[in-house]
């Protein structure tokens, strides 16, 4: 918890960001709009390569640093799809490398679906979305034991709306590190 508090202070100091870590499932730093996917893509290419090893030595937690791609935690999907879009591959790769460099780190990937269609099929679809990201991570260097996948199906929508914007935001994986 001390680390977390410290990291928060630094994050606020450096970025002037008001976001405070919470117990919520949602990523601590997250665009609320469906265009989050676009903004994620814009930043991911630039900072993707800056992530490697030695994350604890500097004091700042890269997982909490809004300028670090590791602070991004959501991967968005197309309708009916569990294919990881190209724009999110740098993000997945960055987290995979973080897990590779931090073998004690553990992550849960929570798969979600939009509200349309069968509850049970959406539960399976959310699981496939989580598994798709996990598979990519283990290919890059994370171990199977580091990454757990769960699905909330359509049962826990982040966006409570009932339109295309809400649906796009809810077709999503969230990456949550143990202890967050």
């Amino acid at each position, binding site marked *: 918890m001390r680390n977390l508090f410290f990291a928060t202070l630094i994050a606020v100091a450096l970025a002037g960001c008001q976001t405070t870590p919470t117990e919520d499932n949602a990523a601590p730093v997250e665009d609320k709009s469906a265009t989050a996917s676009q903004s994620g893509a814009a930043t991911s290419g630039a900072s993707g390569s800056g992530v490697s090893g030695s994350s604890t030595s500097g004091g700042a937690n890269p997982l909490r640093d809004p300028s670090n791609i590791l602070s991004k935690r959501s991967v968005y999907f197309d309708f009916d799809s569990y294919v990881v879009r190209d724009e999110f591959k740098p993000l997945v790769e960055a987290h995979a490398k973080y897990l590779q460099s931090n073998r004690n780190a553990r992550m849960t990937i929570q798969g979600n679906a939009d509200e349309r269609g*069968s509850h*049970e*099929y959406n539960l*399976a*679809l959310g699981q496939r979305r989580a*598994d798709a990201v996990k598979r990519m991570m283990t290919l890059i260097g994370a171990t199977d034991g580091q990454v757990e996948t769960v*699905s909330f*199906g359509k*049962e826990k929508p982040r966006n409570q709306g009932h339109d295309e914007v809400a649906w796009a935001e809810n077709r999503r994986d969230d990456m949550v590190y143990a202890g967050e």
Partner: protein
Amino acid sequence: MPRLLRRIPPFLFLALLPVFAANAQLTIEIVGGAGTTIPIAIVPFENENSYPLGITGIVGADLTRSGLFRLVDYSGVSPRPTRAEEIQPAVWRSRNADAVVAGSMRPLGDGRVEVRFGLVDVVKQTQLASMTYTVTPAQFRVTAHKIADVIYEKLTGDPGIFSTRIAYITKQGPRYQLLVADADGADPQTVVTSNEPLLSPKWSPDGTRIAYVSFENKKPVVYVQSLSTGQRIAVANFRGSNSSPAWSPDGRRLAVTLTKDGSSQIYMVNADGGTAARILTSSGIDTEAAFTPDGGSLVFTSDRGGTPQLYRASISGGNVERLTFDGDYNVSPRPLPDGKGVVFVRRASNRYQIALMDYATRQVQVLTDGPDDLSPSVAPNGKLIIYANEGGGRGILAAVSSDGRVKQRLVAPSADVREPAWGPLPRQ
């Protein structure tokens, strides 16, 4: 009880019960009727007005709600018949009735009441039924549903479903409840309450237990719970997700969807828990298994062909056969009790609709308009399908006859209602 109370519908009485009754009473509206209906006169039973709840009002409401009957006015007929032998066919034919019900209620002195009724086909001039029940006033509702079942079966040839129950999930704010109510929405009872999602209630074939999925442990786990004792066991709580329970017709096993070995796949577990045996293998999603009525096959949803479609396989996992080819989303299969077809959810032009496939012809009849019709459940006589319309985030239950003609809406006052499951015929 004061006479005034007779005018209050029975669901208001039940809503006032203090302990176990839930407040999410469903009331049923008929939104579309059959092309032809059977005209039937239901004469108030002799002595019925001594009892506030009565019987014939409920019988008439049951039959009307089925969409297959319409009530013929009995007023002015004098003397009123009180048993089958007193029904004069000519009197009723002049009112265009095809069938007439008459009966009596006689107090037995010990608090119980002898309820008799007769049913006469006034066209053929034959007596179709004559029955006697000895009951307490607390059993009048149950008795009325039984009488309606007899009338329905005699006049349509299909078993009545007025004595059955339904299960469903409600969501009010953060609170989820699994409820069980009579088929007419009366007497809702809370089975489970949780602050995490509840899903997929499924009745055991004998109606004594319900299987369901609960997220209370932060991930889906399948439970089987006794309705009489409330005791429950986790029948599937493996690594990963556990969901989509389906009872075998003998009630001894359940098909479930597990992710313990990778993606969602179908396994079999015993109804008292234990290990899981994998039934099918695909590289994609297999889920939503349902047993065929003979217990020999499973119908399920799989995306092994690229889009979610219905498949059928033997319970040993062999003879896998794709059933649906039209469209790119056909899910949630529920086999008909006669074994001749399957009800499911299809998507067409972004509308989710309830449809029925006949196995022999492979023809698909679309039964509802959508746009968000999900979670169908077939009544045990195969004639009515209950489902959830989840549009706009506030689900309501609705029902449609298997020929698509009769449509009903089941309205709860405040909750978001979803995932209905129709219970079995009660044991006689």
